[in-house]
């Protein structure tokens, strides 16, 4: 069945979702920055695994990643017109999946008797990772979905 509202040609130009993009915060870019800082922290930690170096650099990277993540969440939470239902649905499942992956890695580090301070920092980095990636995924999906009043 074809209705008048459904005859808009796909790919013929920007639709409502494209026009809404200007009102959205740079969640995906900030999320990718958080991810890059977290991964950098992990690389510094892994490169010095087994010796007891100063943890200043990975702590600074983890702190920076945490700040960007908090700013990102704060900016996104201020958005009113957004497909929050879809966002939370994707976020929930993605959190489950990435916490399983992070859990496996925590298991590896714990099993390997990683020293306390390093283990704590690894866990913080993995928490940032397992929270940030679902945020990127959920935003990337919900940004193109119609908000409740437009649905």
């Amino acid at each position, binding site marked *: *069945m*074809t*209705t008048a509202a*459904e*005859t*808009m*040609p*796909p*790919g*013929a*130009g920007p*639709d409502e*979702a*494209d026009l809404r993009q200007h009102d959205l915060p740079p969640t*995906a870019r900030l*999320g*990718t920055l958080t*991810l*890059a800082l977290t*991964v*950098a922290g*992990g*690389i510094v930690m*892994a*490169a*010095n*695994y*087994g*010796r007891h170096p100063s943890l200043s650099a990975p702590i600074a990277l983890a702190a920076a990643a945490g700040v960007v993540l908090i700013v990102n969440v704060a900016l996104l939470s201020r958005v009113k017109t957004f497909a929050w239902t*879809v966002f939370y649905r*994707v976020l929930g*499942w993605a959190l489950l*999946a990435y916490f*399983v*992956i992070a859990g*496996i*890695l925590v*298991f*590896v580090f714990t*099993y*390997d008797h990683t020293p306390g301070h390093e283990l704590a920092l690894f866990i913080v980095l993995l928490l940032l990772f397992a929270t940030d*990636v679902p945020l*990127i*995924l959920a*935003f*990337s*999906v919900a*940004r*193109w*979905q119609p908000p409740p009043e437009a649905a």
Partner: protein
Amino acid sequence: MTDTVLTDPGLSDPGLVRDVDTGNEAGAGPPAHAPGPPVIAPFSVVPVRGLPIVAVLLIGLIVAISTNSLWALTFFHVGGGGLWTSIDLFLGLIIGPILGGMSVQARVEFTTRFMPKMLLIMPTLVAMTLGAGFQLARHLGNLNAAYPHHAWLVTSYVIVGIMAVIALGLLEPANLAVLFELKKPRPNGERIGRLMKVFIYTAGITGVMQIATIVIMTFLASR
């Protein structure tokens, strides 16, 4: 069958059609319909039937790590890494260009069957490769800073780190966004095309970077 026609009949470029006939399962073969607007058969974003396979692989990975079995760790690391690299390269360099030359209907059918599977396959392969790789390196003493080729190992961390940021920051979000766009009653073909390009190109980039990782890994394994 109830079709939602998504194109202006006056346009030569065919649009997308949502096939909401629940009897037409994705994967049941090409739909028999006359030439016209492409049909999007119902599909599942997450292929539930694949979840037990993922669970078995992840449990196997945990067992391999907890038993420190050299064979099992090598199996998960080399097997996972080989598949990860092959799929990335095959997708970016072979499937991508082929897909670009296919009809809209064929691309839609391919995407709705292929992308959900990638949503399960790639994170599983990444977890297998990295989890087993880290434990294997630790088991063999390669993680130790005193290891003569430690700098090469750190270089591989950096390459994998960049790949992870590209894959998780661009590739996976594009994958998921395409699937949800195709689930809409009125999918936007242009947006799907844009997102698919991101997916294919980033898969190709990470595939090429994987070659660098293979060079380093085979170098280290031969020392």
